[in-house]
């Protein structure tokens, strides 16, 4: 009798057998016909087998661990619902941060799913195919759990009753939407640098801290659980981002300038996108975890720099935009919140003025700028509101052609002067918020002339409610646009104070904590 026991496979052997060995070379189709997208961006790849997947995760383990994550997630979501978890948040203003998150992010996750599914098909090596396929499934899971999570909030609170409709139409949501569509319309290599490296590796930590740790800190178990469940996949995504950079740079020295250009572009695109996160951290969490500036210093200036120091051996440099971001970190959250405050009738969430404690916290966290530039703005807004003349900016803003954010950013060295940049292309004028957005345009003008800028679309007459007649004498264009967005003025937006959300929350919390 043969008593020898077959040794269990080691991780590396298992990965080699169950992943790499599944690849084959086509015999009757040409390689370039099977993988038609891998040459046109100019990247040179000589040996796809050099791709390393350091987690060495095989599909069988992947399903096992993902199933475990789902079980944990739904156990907590059930508990949250059974326990009226939404009434345990610090203060109902907080829910407005969730409205922004849930309006913007599920479609990003879904587009990430599409992007990685495409890469899983088009990357010519088995290593990246498997890693991208796993990430595609992860991203679909994130989209689904977030969409499911919306129902934990929108049956109680206003503004997120129709997130997908708004995601395709509402002005400020064109910022995240166009960011991801820009990435999805890139070739496979630029896409993976954009999303896996610049976004996942370099920038997502700045999102993790405010959303999930912040949700926990503010008593929101529902968000904490879908957030953590998604995050547990992120470490794998980040690792893919770092592997991909090493792989591209080690394959051929000619790849360096192309990769550097993409890192520069997508670091800037990502940072501009995170402006809204900066605002949420500094203004929308009743209990603050850390300021945007602190998060930037820890996660970019310290950790991000370790990464760039590591990549220096390949010739990669820290993106130029980092110098500007260092200056802007003192300003952007305040500029964004004062913008949304003044644009309150045009959003799908509530705004408010920071209270005394919050103003003091901001002064302490932003000693170089807050008292000089921003506290006086809130004092003015408060005075006006107390007189019954709540300030609203009646105008539609000019948008940056690339990041699509209203041109609210100031000159890096002159915080009272809006930054204007402008170029002419094909006989048309184009405007930008910064040198970096301008350079991105100049590199690929054909792409960005196609930008769907909400303000211009409204003017062209493409954003009015069905059935409304813009030539009618009593036509109110803004009312029609709000109707087109499915927003009910005053109910879905405006001041938090006096809102239906505020009233309901107070009443329900009262019912939950007494016998009245």
């Amino acid at each position: 009798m043969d008593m020898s026991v077959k040794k269990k496979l080691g991780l590396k052997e298992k990965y080699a057998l169950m992943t790499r060995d599944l690849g084959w070379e086509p015999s009757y189709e040409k390689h370039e016909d099977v993988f038609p997208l891998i040459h046109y961006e100019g990247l040179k790849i000589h040996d796809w087998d050099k791709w390393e997947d350091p987690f060495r995760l095989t599909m069988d383990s992947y399903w096992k661990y993902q199933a475990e994550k789902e079980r944990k997630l739904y156990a907590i979501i059930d508990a949250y619902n059974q326990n009226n978890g939404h009434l345990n948040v610090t203060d109902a203003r907080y829910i407005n941060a969730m409205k922004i998150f849930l309006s913007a992010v599920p479609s990003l996750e879904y587009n990430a799913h599409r992007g990685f599914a495409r890469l899983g098909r088009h990357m010519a090596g088995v290593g990246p195919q498997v890693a991208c396929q796993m990430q595609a499934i992860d991203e679909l899971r994130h989209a689904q759990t977030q969409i499911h999570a919306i129902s934990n909030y929108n049956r109680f609170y206003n503004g997120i009753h129709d997130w997908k409709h708004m995601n395709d139409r509402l002005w400020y949501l064109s910022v995240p939407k166009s960011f991801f569509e820009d990435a999805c319309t890139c070739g496979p290599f630029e896409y993976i640098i954009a999303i896996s490296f610049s976004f996942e590796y370099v920038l997502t930590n700045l999102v993790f801290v405010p959303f999930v740790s912040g949700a926990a800190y503010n008593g929101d178990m529902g968000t904490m659980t879908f957030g953590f469940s998604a995050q547990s996949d992120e470490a794998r995504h980040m690792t893919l981002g770092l592997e991909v950079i090493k792989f591209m740079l080690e394959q051929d020295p000619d790849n360096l300038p192309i990769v550097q250009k993409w890192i520069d572009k997508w670091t800037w695109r990502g940072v501009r996108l995170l402006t809204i996160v900066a605002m949420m951290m500094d203004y929308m969490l009743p209990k603050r975890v850390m300021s945007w500036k602190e998060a930037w210093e820890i996660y970019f200036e310290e950790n991000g720099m370790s990464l760039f120091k590591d990549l220096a051996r390949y010739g990669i440099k820290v993106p130029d935009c980092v110098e500007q971001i260092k200056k802007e970190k003192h300003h952007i959250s305040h500029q964004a919140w004062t913008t949304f405050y003044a644009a309150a009738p045009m959003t799908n969430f509530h705004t408010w003025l920071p209270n005394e404690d919050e103003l003091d916290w901001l002064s302490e966290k932003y000693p170089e700028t807050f008292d000089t530039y921003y506290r006086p703005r809130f004092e003015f807004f408060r005075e006006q509101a107390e007189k019954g003349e709540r300030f609203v900016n009646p105008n539609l803003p000019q948008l940056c052609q690339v990041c699509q954010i209203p041109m609210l950013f100031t000159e890096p060295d002159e915080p009272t002067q809006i930054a204007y940049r402008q170029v002419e292309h094909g006989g048309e004028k184009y405007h930008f918020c910064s040198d970096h957005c301008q350079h991105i345009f100049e590199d690929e003008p054909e792409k960005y002339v196609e930008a769907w800028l909400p303000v211009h679309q409204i003017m062209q007459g493409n954003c009015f409610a069905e059935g409304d007649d813009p030539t009618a004498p009593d036509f109110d264009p803004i009312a029609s646009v709000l109707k087109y967005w499915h927003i009910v003025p005053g109910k879905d937006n405006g001041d938090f104070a006096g809102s239906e959300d505020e009233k309901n929350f107070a009443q329900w919390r009262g019912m939950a904590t007494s016998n009245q």
Partner: protein
Amino acid sequence: MSVQSIRPFEPVVKDAAANFHGLQVVYLCWDKHLMFYAPIAKMLPPSMTFGELIDAEITPAYSRHPDFARIDWSAVEWRKDGEAFTPALDKSLADNGITHKTAIHFTTPGLDGIGGSGF
């Protein structure tokens, strides 16, 4: 540089002048008055005079600011697409060289926002 693509394509200029029904987009910004957070976008007839632009567009857009009533219009400094210029008030936007997507910025010497704060 130009875009790399798998096959040639003709970009569609989404905001071409022809899409604005005979009107043109004009951007306005009263510098050092960040209460209005960003330059504003207007859709205007090219035949509108510069004087009408001030009365019918700039005034309602910015009159809420306490500085607005104190503006000495003869002292205002205008820029058009970044270049200093002196508008002819009785001439049309077109005759003032203001075309589709022109950016007009103006400063009001001595009036730099609340308490000179740029706001």
